[in-house]
């Protein structure tokens, strides 16, 4: 079946003008010279995007990269400076839960008001009312003014209203991290149901794990342009590399500012399995993995520790250790040093993994950190999914 595009973002740019004056007086005084007091800021620049029906797209990127602006452009809240956004179907935006709530009205009145804001008619709200209250789990307080609600109750009611609107396209901005855990799980479940019902979801979030878990596609925005667009795995790799570059820059700046900081660097990380595989080795059951790390320090490195870890390609760290935890104090290092960690019998599931390595000062400050120092794969017997492996047994009982 052909996929139908529901959102088309066509060469969209958005310029914000930053003005330094706001009052009538200042404008009159600076009239004619007002261009000197303006500054252009491009929040989006030539963004092209087509979203097909039934997909879940994650918009990710560092702060200020234009994610929320793009979402608001799709929602029609912000109009692009140039280009066009076109869409079809019913759209609901969850940009801020309870944006339409009035503190002086009761929960019941606010449900009707908020539902109307999201585009539901009175009859539709009547029909869903019990379900909304039931989902929110605050039956007892539904006739209380919402200003007496706790923030959790507030958000519960708002989310309950939002999901009972029957949208074809749902825009979600950073609202999943609300409520207590059981409620959060309920929300995520509902989002999954939405996915199975073929609704299109566009999600802005900083929770990269969420993107990896929910989305079919991730779009990385950087300074208003699309830096990567594709399966979450690949897009997130681009984003993580970008984050890493930013961090390195910052560290280098710090180093320049502070001459006394140690300058040691990890110059090489090599892997070796007990089966003898090297390079990008494949680890088989019951084999050990050895991680060799080479460090170079132009000055004398004191009071330090060396750490390694294992992460999934999504960046979730599965295992971490360092010399301090292992009870091995590191002596002063001058010049080059080689060290080896041996990890016996790694019970990992099939898949690709990365090795993380880092040097840390005694005060916890980072000296050098390599997020993807080396790669290896694991081949297991195929009896399980997920990164953890164990030899499960199964038998009927009784």
């Amino acid at each position: 079946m052909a996929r139908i595009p529901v959102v088309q973002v066509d060469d969209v740019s958005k310029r914000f003008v930053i003005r330094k004056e706001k009052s009538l007086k200042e404008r009159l005084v600076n009239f004619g010279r007002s261009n000197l007091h303006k500054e252009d800021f491009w929040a989006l620049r030539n963004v092209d995007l087509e979203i097909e029906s039934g997909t879940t797209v994650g918009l990710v990127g560092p702060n200020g990269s234009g994610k929320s602006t793009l979402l608001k452009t799709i929602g029609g809240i912000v109009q692009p400076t140039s280009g066009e956004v076109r869409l079809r179907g019913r759209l609901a935006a969850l940009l801020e839960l309870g944006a339409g709530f009035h503190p002086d009205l009761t929960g019941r009145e606010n449900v009707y008001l908020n539902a109307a804001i999201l585009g539901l008619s009175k009859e539709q709200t009547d029909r869903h009312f019990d379900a909304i209250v039931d989902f929110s789990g605050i039956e007892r307080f539904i006739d209380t003014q919402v200003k007496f609600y706790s923030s959790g109750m507030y958000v519960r009611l708002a989310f309950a209203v939002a999901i009972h609107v029957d949208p074809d396209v749902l825009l979600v901005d950073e609202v999943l991290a609300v409520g207590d855990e059981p409620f959060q799980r309920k929300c995520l479940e509902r989002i999954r149901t939405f996915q199975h019902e073929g609704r299109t979801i566009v999600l802005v979030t900083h929770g990269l794990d969420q993107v990896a878990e929910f989305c079919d596609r991730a779009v990385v925005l950087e300074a208003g342009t699309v830096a990567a667009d594709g399966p979450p795995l690949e897009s997130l790799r681009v984003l993580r590399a970008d984050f890493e570059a930013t961090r390195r820059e910052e560290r280098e700046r710090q180093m320049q500012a502070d001459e006394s900081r140690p300058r040691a660097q990890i110059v090489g990380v090599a892997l070796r399995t007990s089966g003898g595989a090297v390079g990008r080795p494949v680890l088989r059951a019951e084999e050990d993995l050895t991680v060799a790390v080479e460090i170079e320090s132009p000055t004398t490195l004191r009071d330090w520790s060396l750490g390694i870890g294992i992460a999934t390609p999504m960046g979730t760290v599965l295992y971490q250790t360092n010399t301090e935890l292992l009870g091995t104090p590191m002596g002063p290092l001058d010049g080059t040093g080689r060290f080896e960690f041996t990890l016996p019998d790694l019970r990992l599931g099939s898949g690709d993994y990365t090795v993380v390595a880092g040097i840390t000062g005694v005060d916890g400050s980072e000296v050098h950190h390599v997020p993807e120092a080396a790669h290896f794969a694991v081949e297991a017997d195929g009896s399980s999914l997920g990164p953890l492996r164990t030899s499960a047994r199964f038998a009927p009982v009784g």
Partner: protein
Amino acid sequence: MTAPGVVLCTVLLAETISAPATTTRKHMTDIVEERAAVLAQQPMRPASPRPGFARGTATSLRDVLAHRELLGLLVRRELKARYKDSALGFVWSLVRPLVLLLIYYVALGQFLGAARQIDSFAIFIYSGLTAWTLWSEIVSVGTSSIVANAGLIKKVYLPREVFPLSVVGSALFGFCMQLIILVGATLVARQFPVGTRWGWFFLSLAVLLVWGLALALVLSATNVYLRDIQYLVEVCMQVFFWLSPIVYSWKLVHGVIQGTVWETIYLLNPMTLVTLGFQRAFWVAGDGTAYPPDLESNLWLALGVGVLALWLCQRVFARLQANFAQEL
């Protein structure tokens, strides 16, 4: 490859728990395909209204009409929230004009002696005041309506016209309460307006609403860009209160600036016409006094020009609203 695996697992779990897997899956794909088929038939539409100057009118109207239910709810929100938790509630919306009436009646009518020249002075003042209260609420509350609803405007797309419109709605409610008092007073004074007088009332009310909404639209939109507007409006309302024949009779003005260009300018103010129209409707005792000539045709003219102004103001509003979300 780990992530899709995880998703798959959860899906399987969810489905086996809820129902036999095969039927659920089939049901699900049906829904998905149905939705896609329905969507395929819909044409692509722009995400936000394009600011075409003339063409956009119909779109804006349709947009607002589609949200009339929300409009009703917003009006009710305004009203409910305003006097929530107060013991007297809506009575308070009547106290203010009644106190004003008392002040003007005593200070102007008795102390300054205006009541000696004007029969049924209280009804005279209250007909003008009723119109003015509605007018000033529409214009001054309307001006700040967009800024006051910034939270909503930045987060949800709605036709932004609903906010000034909801102000008109809630102002009309208070107006009705005052009108009941006014009509009650005419009953008590045995001067109940009958017949064509109600024609004056409806015509003047129409002029007031059209001009009030036009101003509320254009002022609320400009107020977003220049917050000085709302203070300016406050001052202007004070000035224009005294520039309309509410607490003094038109006869006095006529005596001073008779036949001059100033009189023409004075009569150009739609609120002057509206006030006179209201007095014509409810101030039965004043039938003998002079009214400006052609008051009726001038009111019709004001209505005609007002409709044009309303259209222009709506177009300006539509143009300015494009950047509301980022300016607020």
